[in-house]
């Protein structure tokens, strides 16, 4: 396929809608911040953490491909690369949110931690040290995003990942697993400074992986319906996307339960406090909905082969899982920061609109750029396509 054929043509309507979503969402968020100032920062944190998570998810999928040598999804690698290249845009936003909102963390008031916790936690949660760590994590990730995108552009002519790509990806996986584990503890878990769970970072990793797979599936199907991937993605590749979505959903549930069961079993007050504030009252429906949306429904729907091959069902499940990711992080942040009861108000809706619009625009921009460097090529099995079309009759 030559380069002229892959020029990105997105209808201006879509772009207009994304702009509208971002602007209206931003205004709603600002208005909500004026009306309910205590809900503004938690929603900003949620927004920043989610959007950085999507970039990291894109990097993860690139690293998996480089290290496993999987070639089945190379024909739409532009999708995950565009996701990853959103990271340099979203990371500074999160850094500003975290540093500006430092006083919203309970440990930033010296008295909170003075009596109850050990010296290590006090030392670890020094505001200066926290800021340094935050900037380091984000800078490291952005560095990987930039260098992996550079390596990916260089390999476009090759058949498969270059040595540089493989080394970068291996280094990324090692560095990411440590930094993300610490970062999720720093940014989210320390909202409840007396609670801790060592699997918390892995749990967030499961969520990032699941939502990244959902985003890749959603965008791939969308670009297949009305974009440059129209004749590129086969039904078998949709099937593989659906299989991965199903398995990552099960992985998320597995880790969720790992954390829950140990805390439930030992039943120590300082550990159960996290669940006690989420499993009771009006939070309870959201708590159970989280499990249903992120695992039970996708599992039941995606189990039959036919639904993994159906573009329509994949889109619906991916959208559901993306909402589930929002809910998952919402349940991590909001019960610890604001209030005894959940509220979906201007702040929440505005933040959602802003993130959908802004990330969509960044993605489209990155996709256009990515397509210039790595043109869409039919997969090696593209000669299966007429067969599948034949068999579909």
């Amino acid at each position, binding site marked *: 396929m030559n380069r002229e054929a892959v020029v990105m043509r997105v209808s201006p309507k879509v772009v207009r809608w994304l702009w509208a979503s971002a602007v209206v969402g931003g205004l709603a968020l600002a208005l909500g911040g004026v009306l309910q100032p205590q809900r503004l920062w938690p929603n900003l944190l949620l927004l920043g953490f989610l959007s950085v998570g999507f970039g990291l998810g894109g990097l993860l999928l690139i690293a998996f491909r480089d290290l496993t040598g999987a070639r089945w999804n190379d024909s739409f690698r532009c999708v995950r690369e565009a996701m990853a290249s959103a990271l340099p845009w979203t990371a500074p936003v999160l850094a500003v949110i975290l540093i500006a909102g430092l006083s919203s963390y309970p440990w930033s008031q010296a008295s909170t931690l003075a009596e109850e916790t050990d010296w290590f936690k006090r030392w670890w949660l020094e505001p200066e040290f926290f800021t340094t760590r935050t900037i380091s994590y984000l800078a490291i990730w952005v560095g990987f995003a930039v260098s992996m995108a550079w390596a990916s552009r260089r390999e476009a002519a090759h058949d498969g990942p270059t040595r540089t790509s493989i080394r970068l990806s291996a280094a990324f996986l090692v560095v990411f697993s440590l930094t993300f584990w610490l970062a999720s503890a720093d940014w989210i878990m320390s909202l409840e400074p007396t609670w801790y769970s060592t699997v918390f970072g892995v749990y967030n990793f499961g969520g990032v992986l699941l939502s990244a797979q959902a985003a890749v599936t959603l965008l791939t199907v969308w670009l297949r319906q009305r974009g440059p991937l129209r004749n590129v993605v086969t*039904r*078998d590749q949709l*099937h593989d996307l659906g299989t991965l979505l199903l398995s990552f959903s099960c992985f998320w549930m597995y880790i969720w*339960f790992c954390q*829950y*069961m140990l805390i*439930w*079993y*030992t*039943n120590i007050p300082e550990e159960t406090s996290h669940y006690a504030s989420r499993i009771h009252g009006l939070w309870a429906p959201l708590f159970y909905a989280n499990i249903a949306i992120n695992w039970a429904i996708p599992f039941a729907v995606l*189990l039959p*082969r036919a639904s993994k091959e159906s573009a329509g069902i994949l889109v619906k499940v991916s959208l559901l899982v993306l909402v589930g990711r929002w809910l998952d992080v919402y349940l991590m942040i909001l019960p610890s920061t604001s209030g005894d009861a959940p509220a979906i108000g201007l702040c929440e809706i505005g933040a959602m609109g802003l993130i959908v619009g802004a990330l969509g625009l960044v993605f489209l921009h990155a996709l256009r750029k990515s397509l210039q460097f790595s043109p869409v090529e039919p997969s090696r*099995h593209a*000669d*299966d396509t007429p*067969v*599948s079309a*034949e*068999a*579909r009759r």
Partner: protein
Amino acid sequence: MSKRTLVAVFEREADLVRAVVAVRKAGLRIGDVYAPYAVHGLDRALGWRPSRLSWACAFSGLAGAIFMLWFQWWTSAVSWPLNVGGKPWNSLPAFVPIIFEGMVLAAGLGTVFALLVVARLRPGKITTPIAPGLMDDRFALLVEETDAAFDAVAVSELLRGCHAVEVSERVLEDDSPPLGEARDAARTRWRRRLNYVLLLVLAVVVAMNFLALPNPSQPNREFLPDMAHSPAYTSESANPNFPDGETLQRPVLGTLVQGQMPLHYAATDDEALRAGRELHNPLSAKDVHAGERGALVFQTFCTPCHGGGGQGDGLVALRGYPAPPSLVTGNTTKMPDGQLFHIITYGRVNMPSQSGLLSPHDRWAAILHIRSLQTPAAPKPTGAKP
């Protein structure tokens, strides 16, 4: 019934799939397809109904999960209820890991078993690939010769057009899955015999298990008992090396336990007065740590009867037990530290001895706290809680 069949061998899966489509388009009958792994899209190209193996997997997984749920409920709530950390007998979260493992095990074994049954791979069955390389990197397509009008040459040409590397005509015996003739009869016979021997060994092992029923009233026979019997003397066993014949030796007469000095007083009021004259608090009132320790000891062991302020209004006294005299007024204020130490150590009237609960250091620390209660003007040591 024997069938004449064309066997076409391919090197690429795409060629195989394309050949399947071409053969079906030509109206020919496909006997079977062989591939070393699952080829995506092949079953659709063949037009066969989807494999039912996934149903076998789903049902055996479900059965395993349900069995494990029932089994754990029965063992922990019905047959032998066991209190684990105060949880209810029937605690679903505790069952989930085993349910999960049982589901995975049953689904895996059930799927393999269903595959063996469907493929008729009974024990002792010897199969030989119809063409070399089918277990490795080659693919085979079998086209059946249906009637006299079958033009083997034309079909061979068609298959070669789809990049078949080899097309040969074979006669396959019955309509069981065609397995090809055994190429090495002697080797096949030996393999079959080995299978029978292994089966026999399995049966013998199982039978011996039943024959050698263990007798629970007898110790088991020991095999290589080196680890079971320690050559060292245990503390209670007889020992010829010592004059008294015991392994655990008594301490030398007059030995004291480290950190515990004996108290040479009897448990009488006279002796308490003597203790008051002779003993002095080794802890200083300026010692902040001792003060904190004393406050903690007092709060834990004294408050129930004497009350937080030492006025004899503890919860035990409020509920009818004879109230102890106040520690902050009257007689107690005049008692020297040594006498209080004697009273805490041996008890007095209704107060039992505290020597088993409190170390001498803690007793002296508690006395420090009592003194600080008696002089409310003095600043309380930090850490004292109301």
